[in-house]
Each structure stands twice: as structure tokens, then as C-alpha cells.
């Protein structure tokens, strides 16, 4: 597979480490919403179809990416820096 790295262009998937569902970005706050941690830690979507996933460019520039991939066809519909996705979802410090 080739992953279209937003900074480096197409890179072989071998350079990356896979983590999984990009919902891991939405970590709850441990002090104010501890009841949400079970779902956060254990419940993940695993769709047959379009999926947003976290990939780490470990053999490259160390960017975490959010890759939109069709898990059936392996078609990749886009890749952005996870940092930007996180900010877009209201995460900051």
C-alpha cells in the first residue's frame, strides 16, 4: 500500500506502524468524565468500508496521520496530520 503523506508525498505502508480507529484521538478527561473510559479504551468501530485510522510514520518523519481508507478495497481517500485532526476536534493542551 502507498500512503499519501501530507508532507512527504506517497510513502510505502511498510514505513508506517498501524494503530487503528482514529477515535482514539477523542480521549475523555480522567478527572471530569471517568465513566467514559471504558468505551474509549475498549469499544472501537471496525467497519467494512470507509474507516479513519491512525498510522505512525515510524520509519520516516514520526508524524501521526489520520488516513481515510476503505477496508474492503484498500482505497485510500486521504491522509492528514493527526495533529490537525485533533485540533479540529477541539483538542489543545
Amino acid at each position, binding site marked *: *500500500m502507498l500512503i499519501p503523506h501530507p508532507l512527504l508525498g506517497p510513502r510505502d505502508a511498510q514505513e508506517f*506502524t498501524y494503530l487503528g480507529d482514529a477515535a482514539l484521538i477523542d*480521549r475523555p478527561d*480522567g478527572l471530569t468524565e471517568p465513566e467514559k*473510559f471504558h468505551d474509549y479504551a475498549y469499544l472501537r468501530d471496525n467497519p467494512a468500508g470507509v474507516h479513519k485510522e491512525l498510522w*505512525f510514520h515510524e520509519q520516516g518523519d514520526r508524524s501521526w496521520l489520520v488516513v481515510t481508507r476503505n477496508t474492503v478495497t484498500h482505497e485510500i481517500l486521504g491522509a492528514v496530520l*493527526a*495533529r490537525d485532526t485533533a485540533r479540529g476536534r477541539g*483538542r489543545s*493542551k
Partner: protein
Amino acid sequence: MTEVLRDTSGVLTGQDAAPVLASQPMRVTGGLVDRSRSVRFTFDGKSYTGHPGDTLASALLASGVKLMGRSFKYHRPRGVLSAGSEEPNALVELRSGARREPNTRATVAELYDGLEASSQNHWPTLAFDAMAVNDWLSPFFTAGFYYKTFMWPAAFWEKLYEPIIRRAAGLGTLSREPDPDAYDKGFLHCDVLVIGAGPAGLMAALTAARAGARVILADEDFALGGRLIAETHEVGGQSGAGWATSAVAELAGMPNVRVMPRTTIMGVFDHGVYSAVERVSDHFAAPLAGKPRQVLWRVYAKRAILAAGALERPIAFADNDRPGVMMAGAVRAYLNRWGVAAGKRVALFVNNDDGMRTARDLMARGVEVVAVVDPRRDIRRQAGLPHMLGVVTGTTGRLGLTGINVRRIDGREEHVVCDALAVSGGWNPTVALTAHQSARPVWDEKISAFLASPNAPAGLIPVGAAAGAFSTHGALASGAAKAAEAVEALGFRAPAADLPQAEDAPVRIAPFWHVPGKGRAWVDFQNDVTVKDVKLAHQENFRSVEHLKRYTTLGMATDQGKTSNVLGLAVMAELTGQSIPETGTTMFRPPYTPVAMGVLAGRSRGEEFKPTRLTPSHKWAEERGAVFVEVGMWLRAQWFPRPGETTWRESVDREVLATRKAVGVCDVTTLGKIDIQGTDAGLFLDRVYANTFSTLPVGKVRYGLMLREDGIVMDDGTTARMGEHEYVMTTTTANAVPVFRHLEFCRQCLWPDLDVQLISTTEAWAQFSVAGPNARALLSRIVDQDISDAAFPYMACGNVTVCGGLRARLFRISFSGEMAYEIAVPTRYGDALVRELMAQGQDLGVTPYGTEALGVLRVEKGHVAGNELNGQTTALNMGLGKMVSKKKDSIGMVLSQREELVREDGLRLVGIKPVDPAAQLKAGSHFIALGKDPVAANDDGWITSLVHSPHLRHQIALGYLKNGAARMGERLRAVNLLAKTEVEVEIVSPHFIDPQGERLRG
């Protein structure tokens, strides 16, 4: 394009006919072999000669050898069926000794001087094979025979049935010696990958290359041209072979083209990634100096043109597997390319016009054609051909064909004497690669064959015969058109196609699959699957093609059903009364042809299986005779034997005692080191560690515990605050990479706006532990600054200089429980530093110690390590529950507090000692209360780490015990059911040495 291959030796030029040699009775005029030179080879120990350009199969046929192998199950005598990589029958062993290679297809084995080949799967000889008794017993060996016969008793399977079957079945045998040759891997990039160098592929490559695209042209054959060099068709007014030669020469001369003969595209992967195996040295007895035997290429192609041609399929009729029965296209290839007649009296059995070419080509070379048997009623008879309307119902001749039985349409039966039979049941486009990503081929009624699915991988474009364009003109035209489309989509301008003139015969075929009758009619030659077996599968309701394959083994083994799959499917379709598309298709999966394990491994074998990381003190340790141990990719000194020491225990005990008595030095470079800087570095650490780091004063070190989000301990280590906004974290050796990945996840995905930067410095610093009562005395001689207890107390850290100015980092931390330091210098000074420590410490009793002594020291002190951090255990289990701060949010904080994980009577870290000091424990033993049965219900915990303590003079261990903290002094049984040991133990504090920590602070 980094490299252009200009080797055009793959293309052969025709030589004028030489006189027929007595040793090559079947060699006729013409062909593209170099008759000016002879090549000697042996088959089953007997010497033969052939010519450069021959394959083993063509040279054997030329020499009159038809019997080349025995079939898999029935040990039937078999000859060559095809002239290409689809060959199911002629499997041989090549070479000898360590280079022996079983199951090689004689049809693709390029002849070289001194080639040794032998037949396989027979005993004692190829001509007299005692195992052929299976053939007479064939009623017992039908499909599903193994499943039915060897059902019971179950105990017989392993001891009796399997060894017998394994000896009787199988094909060639392995050399059982290490492969002496090297295999490489490489990467290639191109705009257009052209797969196959027949008329379609050559035309596509020319079109793309002339447009300026970067082109790779790969063909599995050593001679390029595909069917152009196997047929007599003219192209552009010259011979097909001549046109191919000029096309290859033009391509090889272009800087944007890489021509790769002997290169098979094995698989199609996502997003335009193709795997290719180039057989660099298979046509030599041994690879040339410095050359690999084969190269596995990973090809990145924006577009790929699939010009893989088509494979001819057989017709099933009784005893259609005798040596001498061949595919018609193969008969023409042997005749036209190699100048070899398949027989002296040749018959044909065909259902399409293409078969009649064979008769004409043979007659043009003076080979007698005795019958052209054709079941079609509407054939266009050609003058001079011995047409017979009807079918072949059987054959005669055990070790070689002697004749065929023909039943004419009017019912008349007759026997025709012949020594070769050319069969054609039509052609299957070679669409295997288009199915590698699950796109099932689709049936096309017009050509009675499967074509690529419209859902085939994007960018993989079939042309020519692979796309059902069977005429030479069709191949050239579709190759040019599709290549032009492909390069224009990539932004190139393709010049107008300059198509040479070529024949454009239409496809005339009437589907005809098998001749009904009593005898056994082979569908799959390689796996000995007959029409009867397909019928049996149908009868027993294994009707799905996937079931048919598994039940009968149709389409398995080295040829993967290249000649048999469609025929098997057609027979099943007849039985079920369904059409072929309703019956289904079988899938094609990589690799296209068999691949040697060696080329998949490449250089990653033996010691090079993975990279080896050496510590900065490796050379020094080697000089001292250290014994090394693999720790991840690292090699670490395990112990340093001294003369006279006969067991590892003697060395390790000495190292431990010397460290506790004087001073020991150990290389701890392998621990992960991560520099963490930024105004939010402290806050960041508070979130990734269970305990607090923002309050750590500058110049101090703290032990940190890192949890996973589920509350289980991920890693531990010390982190030092080197400056206001600068920390240095250490991780365990094993987790250096995962922890760094995790920290980057936290930094980028969870808190993207924290001002914190990370970099791994594991390889930047050489780090040594200096431990023992003389540690300070030794380091004072090295470190330029004051390191007295007042100036540099326990858990202090700082930037210092050593040896008169070299920058270094000093940490006063201890894993051994002794007064200890870790000192780090830039990696390139690591070797010098350890030598200096040894030199300076001689009078202080300095002793190097390895990982074994390190382990003893930490178990004596009760420190946890990898065995205790096993991915199942919590901080509370380790007795470190109070370290998890609930005042702040940190990774794993919430879930570490789950009810089950905070049970008062849960597992706790304990120390263990045998009641009898001489007793020998086993690591992994489980705790069982005295008097209780050793069953899971009574399992109270287990031993994690076990060492011999030279101080206590008996074994000590760490372990997890239910409610362990409350059970000090209790006696239990440590039971190991695997090793069948049981030792009575006493539960003690895990701190065996200096529980008050007085030594640390001295």
C-alpha cells in the same frame, strides 16, 4: 530510472540449419537455437547435448527423450505437456549437492553447459517405478481417499499413516543443506510496467517509451518475443522473431527503458505495487562472482500493461496423459523456436482453427501429420490435411505414445498409429494477476474463456491475448492503444501508433471439454485429478468450485491449475447442468509461479536475519572474552568469564560479589533514552507517567511508572530533570521503540498544542552503570567536578565533564541497590570511557559485569523488570500502587482503579526462598497452598524471576502471590507441572539485601 539494462542476450538470432545429429534425432531444421555451439548436460546420469537457447525440455525432446517424470499420486509415466511455466508434468531436480533444486519445470530450465538434471518421484528408476502399483490400485485412490481411508484409529495417523503417505507422495526432495547462494531485494519505480514481451507487450512498451515514459518491460522467459518466436507469423513484412529482436533492441537502447528478461511478475498489491523475481543466475551452474542467484524486486508502477498472453487448455479423454501427448501450441513452439519435432508421426485433436496451424507448421518441416481429429461439424477443411471428424477416445503406449483410438462422428472406430498427439481445447487468457486483489474473472461466450473482471485493480490494463485479442494484429493494436491511453493519462503525449502489418485471424472455437467414456480422463495432470474424480466430488456434493478444489486437489501444487482449472470447472458445469459462469471461477493468488524461499528471505538469513545492534563497549567486551546474549536486536555482554571458571555461575557469582564488595561496571546503553524539552515538558510527563514529574527539582532524578490506558503497567524507568524545561527519560531496552511511539501519539493526537518536543537519543549516548561501595572513588578519578555525597547526593543528576573536559551526564541512580551512578558520554567515546574506568579502577577492585549479574543484583534488591512488567500487571500488583496519583489525569489512571484491579487480596509482589536452602526452584512455578491439589482453582500466583544469590548462598525469587503482602512468612508449595518439580518455599519481603536502602545513600 536509475539503471538501464542493455543486455539483449535474451533475444536469439536464428542460425542456419545444421545437419541432423545422431544424438538429437528429433532436431529438424529452423529454430532459434545456436547450432554453431553445443551444450552438454545430463539427465538421470546419462549425457546429452543441446544448443544455447534450448530449455532442458527442448533439448530432451530433441534427443528423443519423452519420459520426463512420474505423476504425483499414481506414478504414471509423464512427458512434457507445455513449453512454458504452466508445465504440470515435466518436473525435475536440477543441480546437485547444496544447489539441488526440486520440482523445477524442465520447460523453463535454461540449458547451460554441465547442467545436471534428474527425474523425481519414482523408485527405483524413471522407466521402472515400483510405486506405479498405485496406478493399478487407483480405484482406492480417488478423490477424498485420504479423508475416508485414514480416519481411524486416530492414534495410527501420526505414527503410521502420515509417514507412509509422506514417503509415497510428494515430488522432489530437498538438499537438506544450507543454500550457498545469495539472494537480493531491490526497489524499482516506473511510469509503466509492461508484463510480458510478446507482440502486445513489445508494442505497448514501444508506445509508452517513445512517448517518454519510464518503462520496465519484464518477461519470465529468457528469450523475448512471446508467441512471436513460437509461431511462423510475419510482422511488418519480416519474421515475427525478427520484428521482436528489433523491437527489443530499440527498447534496450532507450535511457528511459529497463528490459528485464528472466523476470516474473509474481503478485499485484495495493496501489500499483508489484513483486517481481528476476532469475539472475539460474542459467549458470553457479552464480557469477558477486552476483546473487535471484532478486526480489518491489516495483512501484503508475500503470501496468498486462501482456501475459494466454495458456492453452487440454481436452480430457481416456489416457490423455501419456508421454507424447502435448498441447498443440507447445508442439509449434518446440518446432518453430527450438527446431524440435514432437514426434515422427503426429496426430492432432483440436476444437479450434488454431490447431490446424500446428499441422501446417509440422508439414512445412517435413514432419508427417497422420490425423487432425476435430469434433466440430462445421470445420473449414484445408487441402492436404488428414481431417477426421470425431473424437479421440483413448491412447496406447505405457512409457510413450504408440497410437490413438478415434471415434468418427458416424460411429466408426479406428486406431491411428502415432508417436505424438497435439491437443488444443482453446486458449485461456492469462488473467491471473488481475485476480490478485479478489476480482473474479468473468466468462466470455465469444471466446469461450475467462477475461479480467471490470473490477480488476485500477491501473492494471490487460492487452493482447490476455484481453482476448488472440490474433497478432489484435495483440499489436491493443498493446499500442492501451499503452497510449495509459501514458496520456500520466501527462505524456503518445505519438501516433505505427502498427506493423500482421495476421488477424478470427477466433473460431466450439467449446469441447471432454470425451465421455470408461477410461480415466485426466483433468489435472499434476495432481492426478480425472473426470471421475470431478464426478465423485459432484456426487458427494462438493459442487462449489472451492470445495471441488479442496476435495480433489484440482489446481493445487506447483502449476496452480494453469492448464486444468477451466477444464475442471467445465466438467463440473456439465455435471450440474449449469453454465460455466454459474458454476463459478477459481481464484488466483500470488505468486504466479513457484518462488524459492531464499528470494523471499533475501539477505535476511542466519546472522543477518535481523539487524544486530552492538553496544559501544562491544569490542572491549569481546576482547575480554565476554559471552553475549541477544536482547531484542542488541547483543549485550551476559558475563565475563575468567580463566579457570568452568561454569557461568562461577563468573556471575564473582561479578555480583565484586560489585557489592568493591565496584562493578556494566554497559546500560541499550536502555531507551528520550530527550523531552519545552515549556510544557513537566506537564506532559505528569500526563504520561502515573506519578508526578512537574514538581521534580532541576538536578534530580525520579523513578517513573508508565501505564497503558487500560491501567496495566506499560514501562518503567527513571527520568532526570536536566534543566527547567529539559528532561531525560529512560525506558526499558525492550520498550524503547513502543514508548517513544506512545509519547508521540500523546503529544500529537491528544495534546497537540503542548509546547513539548521529543527525540530519541538512545544511540547518541554511551551509558555505563558504576555500582558498589567504591563507585564514587572510581568516578572521582574520571569526573572533573565534585561528586561528594554533599555535592551529588542520591538521585542527583547533572551535566559534568570527564577526563579533563569531555561532556558527560551523570545520574546517581541504582538498580543494584548499591551506591551507584550511571555515566553517559557521546557514543563515540564509550569504548574509551570503559577502558579508562577499568584502568583507573584497578586498585579499587573494578569488575565488569554482564546482564546475568545485573539480574541477580536487581532481584536481590527486589526491583521489578521485564518479567514482572509482563503486560498483565498493575502498579498495585508490584507494590507501587501509591505511585498512581489520583490528583491529576494521566494515561491509565482511571482504568487502573477498576474494582477488580484494586482488590485488597489481589496479586502482590513477594520474595520467595526455598525452605531447604539446597533446593532448586523452577521459574514459572505456581504457588499452591500446602496440602492442596495443584489445580487451577488452587493457584495462588507464580514465580516471575529466579536467581542464585551468592550472598545468601541459596536461590531467591520474585513472584506474584494473591494477598501477598499479608502472607509474609507463610510456607507454600512452588509447583511446576511441566518440569514435574515441587519445592516448599517461604514467602518473604522482596528486598533481600539492604531493605532500608542504607547502601544507596552512603
